[in-house]
Every structure is written in C-alpha cells, then in structure tokens.
C-alpha cells in the first residue's frame, strides 16, 4: 500500500465519485455542477509544489498512501459532548463527528424557530429551492483542486439560512470532532446564507481526541451575505498533530454588508486555509484575522484573496504567526482590485515570530491593482523577541520564561482582541494562555 503517487490518488477520487454520484444530495442541475467540479479536479489533480498557489505546500508530502473515501464512526467510542459545551456556555452547540451530524446532542431544535438549520442531505429535500440555488455557486470560479473535490463529493455539512431581518444573538458553535480511521478522507460543505439585514455569528471548533488517528478533513464553507447583512465567522483549529486539514471559505458580499472572520490555528499536522472574499456591492466591509501558533513539525498555510469588484469597499487583514520547533508557516495574501473598484481601501499585514532556528516562515503578501484611485498597502515583518523588551522585563525581576511568555502573549493578543464575541474571546484567551505555559 505504501508510496502511491499523487496522480493515483486523484484517480481513486474520481473512481469513488462515479460510485456515489447518483446518491449525492441535489437536483439534476446540482449533479451537473458536481460532475463539472469533478472534471475540473481531475484535470488539475491534487496541487503539487510546482503549482504557484501551492508553492510552499505541495501535497507530495501528505498524499503518500491510499485514501479511504468513506468514514464510519466507531460505535465503541463515547464522546463527552457536555465537556465541550461547558467550555463555552454562551453558545448554541451543534456536534459533528467525522462530518456526520449528531442530532440528539445538538441544539438544532432550539435554533429551528425562524432560522433554517439542517443537514445538507435534508436541505436537498426540505429546502430544495435554496439548496439548489446556492450550492457550489461560490466555488465555480475558484480554481482550487481541494474545493472542487469537495464540491463534487460533499454530502455532509449544514445549511444555515437566516431570513430577512432576523438577528441571531447567540453564537452558533459548530463542533467538529474527528474520530476517523487512519487515511480516511471526509468532506463537509456548509451553506451559510444571511438574507437582507440579517445577522448571525458562527464559530467552528475543530477537535480530535484520539491522538493516533491521522485523517483528512477537507471542508468548504460558502457564505452569502445579502445587503446590509452581517456575518461573523470564527474558527478554532485545534485537531491533533496527525490531521491534515484543508479549509476553504468562500464569501460573497452584497452592498453594505459586513463580514468578520478570525482563524486561530494551533492544531493539525498540515493545514491549509483558503479564504476568498468577493466584494460584489458598494460599501462592503470585511475583516480577516488569523493567528497561528505552531510547534513540532506543524505546517500551516493561510491563503487569502480579497477581490474588490465594486467601489467604496474596505478590507483589512491581520495575520500573525508564532513558530516554534520545526514549525513551518505560510502566509499568502492577495488584494485584488478590479478596474471599477475605485475608492478602495485595502490593508494587509503579516507579522511573524520565529522561536527556533528550525522554524520557517514563508510570506507572500501580494497586491494586484487595476484601479488608480485606491489606497492599498501591505506590510510584512518577521523577527524574534525584542531583546530590549526582554531586558526591561528581566530588570523588573521576571524570569526569562515568564518574560518571554508575557511578550508572546502581548504579540498574540492583538489578533484575539479582534474577536467580536466576548464569551468566545475569553474562551480563546484561555486556550492560548495554556498554549504558552
């Protein structure tokens, strides 16, 4: 079984698709879209190092063995949902195990009131119109092999549809618990739709308790934000250090809408975040923030693209990384300003700290600009702990360890502070603090 080639795995995905395609949720149009996505995936194959977009994250390293395309929950495993719930009490919780919704543990009924929240499979029947209208629409123009593969094959995930004017105060926390077998590959696909003037806060929490399992999690989140609507979308990526995680968030914003995201990455062996924001209306506002704290042999790649299609939009990005041991961090961000998107304000910043000589940081902050009346800038810096600051704290009788921890904490807090849900922010603060100890 050892050492199969990447093209071989691409082929095995295509074979599996042929087996299951008829049973996937959606009408004939969706099936056509899935088939097209599969074709594009096969044509492109899993991205290798030679692919400019995966220059620092070629899949040669992670795709070495046969992949199991189906996952089953091992019944003997008992999951303590309440512990997870208690860590963040001020939220409504939804639980997924290996990409399957655990309905009896989730607060879906409490949410059902006016909001539509259901699995993708149910959505295809109960909310067929919405599902067929939105599924895959934000992925079509996005030439990423993983996202195409997901769009072709995904049958799990959630549809969250917030109707016009509805404001959901309590954050919805989606907990993903990985218990999958070695080499299993599961894919979820969320559709999050906020109609005019609606507002919703969503948190995705990725955990995996079992230290021995190495699985693949390839997720796509399609977020549609209508006029004057607001979506806050936060992720805590804390799976164990065997897991390969690929996460694509495809956002489509209409006039005067607001989107805020914050990605905290501390887990996984190999992780890639793709964030694609399309600003398709005037006066949109979008904030992307991320923090990665890596140790061991972790590899984390944050890829962002903010596509300014219309005038008078603002976008802001702040990504920070702390790299210990042999950790490898990548930040690749692009501000893309189209011909018509005058009066754009776009800012991007990437700041990183290397804590060891074996750590590596690769950054590629990019500007691609076709409109002249814009203010766009980016900054990137990589360095180590400021010796003067360290000395100052040492002179105040802090131990070297304490002083370092304090400085790292101060470095990280800038990203955490941008989380706009108080209860979740303190939850993250606790986790990060533990991480520094």
């Amino acid at each position, binding site marked *: 079984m050892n050492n199969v080639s990447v093209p071989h795995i691409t082929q095995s995905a295509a074979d599996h698709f042929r087996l299951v395609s008829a049973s996937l949720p959606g009408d004939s149009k969706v099936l056509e879209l899935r088939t097209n996505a599969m074709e594009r995936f096969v044509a492109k194959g899993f991205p290798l190092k030679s692919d400019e977009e995966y220059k620092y994250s070629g899949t040669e390293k992670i795709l070495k063995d046969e992949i199991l395309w189906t996952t089953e929950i091992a019944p003997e495993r008992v999951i303590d949902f309440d512990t997870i719930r208690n860590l963040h009490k001020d939220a409504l919780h939804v639980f997924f195990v290996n990409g399957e919704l655990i309905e009896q543990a989730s607060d879906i009924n409490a949410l059902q009131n006016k909001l539509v929240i259901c699995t993708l499979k149910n959505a295809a029947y109960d909310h067929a119109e919405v599902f067929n209208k939105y599924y895959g629409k934000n992925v079509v123009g996005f030439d990423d092999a993983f996202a195409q593969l997901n769009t072709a094959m995904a049958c799990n995930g959630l549809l969250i549809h917030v109707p016009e004017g509805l404001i959901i105060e309590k954050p919805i926390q989606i907990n993903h618990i990985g218990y999958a077998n070695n080499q299993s590959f599961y894919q979820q696909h969320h559709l999050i739709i906020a109609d005019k003037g609606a507002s919703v806060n969503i948190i995705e929490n990725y955990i995996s308790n079992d230290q021995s399992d190495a699985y693949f999690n390839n997720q796509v989140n399609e977020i549609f934000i209508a006029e004057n609507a607001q979506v806050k979308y936060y992720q805590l990526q804390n799976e164990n250090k065997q897991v390969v995680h690929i996460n694509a968030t495809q956002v489509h914003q209409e006039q005067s809408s607001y989107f805020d995201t914050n990605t905290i990455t501390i887990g996984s062996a190999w992780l890639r975040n793709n964030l694609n924001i399309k600003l398709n209306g005037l006066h949109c506002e979008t904030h992307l923030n991320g923090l990665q704290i890596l140790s061991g042999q972790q590899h984390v790649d944050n890829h962002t693209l903010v596509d300014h299609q219309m005038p008078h939009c603002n976008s802001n990005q702040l990504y920070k990384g702390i790299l210990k041991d042999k950790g490898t961090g990548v930040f690749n961000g692009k501000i893309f300003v189209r011909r018509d998107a005058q009066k754009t304000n776009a800012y991007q910043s990437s700041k990183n700290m290397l804590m060891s000589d074996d750590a590596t940081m690769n950054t590629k902050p990019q500007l*691609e600009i076709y409109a002249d009346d*814009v203010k766009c800038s*980016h*900054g*990137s810096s990589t360095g180590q702990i400021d010796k003067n600051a360290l000395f100052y704290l040492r002179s105040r009788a802090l131990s070297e360890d304490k002083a370092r921890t304090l400085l790292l904490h101060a470095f990280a807090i800038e990203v955490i502070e941008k989380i706009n849900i108080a209860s979740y922010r303190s939850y993250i603060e606790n986790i990060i603090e533990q991480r520094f100890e």
Partner: protein
Amino acid sequence: MADILEEVTGSEYKYGFTSDIEMDTAPIGLNESIIRFISEKKNEPAWMLEYRLKAYSKWLTMKEPKHWPHVSYPEIDFQNIIYYAAPKLKKELASLDEVDPELLKTFEKLGISLEEQKRLTGVQSNIAVDAVIDSVSVKTTFKETLAEKGIIFCSFSEAVQEHPELVRKYMGTVVPYTDNFYAALNSAVFTDGSFCYIPKGVRCPMELSTYFRINASGTGQFERTLIIADEGAYVSYLEGCTAPMRDENQLHAAVVEIIAHKNAEVKYSTVQNWYPGDKDGKGGIYNFVTKRGICLEDNSKISWTQVETGSAVTWKYPSVILKGNNSVGEFYSVAVTNHHQQADTGTKMIHIGRNTRSTIVSKGISAGLSNNSYRGLVKIHKGAKNARNFSQCDSLLMGDKCGAHTFPYIEIKDQSAIVEHEATTSKIGEDQLFYCKQRGIDTEKAIALIVNGYCKEVFNQLPMEFAVEAQKLLAVSLEGSVG
C-alpha cells in the same frame, strides 16, 4: 487631460532610427551547427564550444517560464531568430579613425560620441565605454588608461582569447547554464558582451560603461557580462541600451554575472531603454535577462540600480547572493511602463553568510494600458545569523486602465533574522497637484516634479551623468500620462 494623453501617445521613441551598417549574419534558426558556427566565427577554444553545447542540450529540455510571471505575449518562435549578427569588420582596428563612419554616426546619434570620449582623456568624470552593437563589441575606449592600473576592460570575446583562465574560472559560477530557460539559451548562443576585472586593491578611477544597441532586423541579442572585483577593489559600472523601432518583436536575453571578493564593492547601474513598441503595442523588445551577483567573501558589497523605461515585455530580477559574512546587497529600481508595456521585475536577496544586510527600494509607475509588477524574493538561509532586510515597494498608478502589482516572496529559516516588507499603491495625490498648480506650476510640470520626487531615492543612487539622463527619460516616458 485627454489632449495631453493624446500628445504623449503620439510622442516618438527618439532612438528608433536604423543604421545602414554592413552586417555579417548567421543563417536563421537554432541548432548545433549554428552554435558551432558562432564559436568558429569567434575563434573560440574547445572548452568554450563544449560549454555552449552543454547549455544547448540542457536548453532543449527546459520549458519557457510562462506560468508565473505576470506578463503575456505570443509564443516566441526560437527557430525564427538570427542568433548572430555583427557589423562587418574588415580588419583589426588600431585606432578610432578606422572605425566605420556609419557606426560612429550611430553612436553619436545616441549621444555617445566615441570620438569625443577620446578627446576628453584625462578629465575626471570620464567614462570608459564598451559599445556593443548587435551582439558584437565594436569599440572599447580608454583601454590603455585602464590597463595601467591593471584593470581589464574589454569585450567578452577578447577576454576569451586573452584571459581564458579568468573567464574559465568565473563564467557560469553565478548564473550556471542550468539556471533557467533564458540563461541556458544565452549560454548556448551568446555572442559578445563585456568583461571586466579589477585587480586587488584597485579603485577603478572612472565609470565603466557598456552601451548595447540592437540594429539588425530579425535578430536576437544575447550578450554576457562578467565583472570580477578582486579583494578590496571597487568599480562602478553602467549599462545603457536602445533599439530601432520595428514592427516585429525582438528578443534580448542577456546574462550578467558579478563576483565580489573580500572587501570589494561593485555598483551596477542600468538605464534600460529598449524600444517599447508603439502606442498600440506593436513591436518592441522582449527583454528576458538574468542578472546576478555574488558577495563571495566577507565585507563585500553589490549594489544594483536600475531605471527601466523600455521594452515591450521585461522579465528581470537582478539578484545578490550574500555568501560572505557582513556582506551587503542593495537593489534600487524605478520601473516605468506606458501604453501596452508589461514589466515583471524585482530582485532576489539570498542571505547565506552571517550579519548580512540587504535593502530593496522599488518604485513602479504604470500609465496607459500597461502592467507593472514587482516580484522579489528575500530568502534567509538557516545559519544566516543576524540577517537584516528592509524592502519598500511603492507603486504609482496613472490613469484607470493600467495595473500595478506587488508579489514579494519572503522565506525565512533563521530566528535571528529581521525582515521587513512594505508596499503601497496609490495615485498622485490631488492635494499635491493642487498645491503645485496653486503656485503657478502647470499640471504637466507638477506631475514631473512629483514623480521625480517619488523616484528620488533611486535616482540618488545613480552616478551623476546617468541620473540626469534618467530624469529626462522619465519625463519623456510619462509626459502627460495623468488622466
């Protein structure tokens, strides 16, 4: 504003004339026998031919780098290029009087009077010129004066004949023929170029300069420059280039290698003004150049300064490998694109030694329908302790039909490194323009003033003679291009 735009688009490339010089050319196309032909023409030793053939067979296996640069151009037919074109020289020239008068006229038109150079011998601010026309060096001035100091400054072919040990020792050490598609092509078919060697402890008393001119039609220019600064030496080197206006696209693929030994310093300045094509994007030079220097030993310094205003398509990344401890690399660039020009240019700073420093200042100006990209790499190797880099990349957009892009690559493998990168994109401030106009300066002049101020940081790095030329060039390239 529209009128002014009209005026500029009508302004002509002033170096676009052709000269009627008797030429000696190779048959069209590329194969092994062409390479043997070139080598034979130049009466090269066997090792040189062997190097060319090795490069050629490597080139055959390589692909044109088309997927990553932010430029697009039609497929180049490499079999439809003349790889060797030289002005016919009847015999060895003993003095300038024997040079073909047509040739001298050409250089006079370009503002480089070889004769005048001769007359002014002894004046401090003189520049020694190596004039290269269609891949062949026609005349090198001040050779004797330089020889007194032990400086070797001659054409590349001459160096192959007279200093084979130096050429053999250094050629291909910085840019091996395996490096990239165009470097391989150049290594196989290069015809001439400049060679410069500054011996131990010598400070070159004058600016050395090479003037490149493409003249013949249907040819490609493939020259090679090799500069070696031995221990403690210093040299400032200038490079200028122009080409006639033609409807066809001509290929220019050069290789420049710089080697700086202990405590040596090399300053390399370029004013690149190849024919950029007409206002509809017809014709122009494809400029695919590999330029790289290595700070081989401790305390050495290499500095690149470039003013890029020409070429239809530019693909150029002057780089420095900072191998010696405490070595310094610098890159200062102004890249201007107008009409349909495309430029993908920047630098690479590879930090290997300890306490190495590099500075990157890049100013891009795009106007018309052009696209101007900065693409740069800063790489800190493991063990490159206390490496320091600062990069500043600014782009200025003039008009709403052009594009300005920044693609920096930053790869860091050492925790003691401090690397900073900043980039901005904007247009000329309304308030700045208003201020100037309020003081009675018309729009045209105000723009020139503001742009000059914007580029000042880079122009300050140029030798005086070049700085003046560069400023004028900039004014011509951009005249009224603000809409």
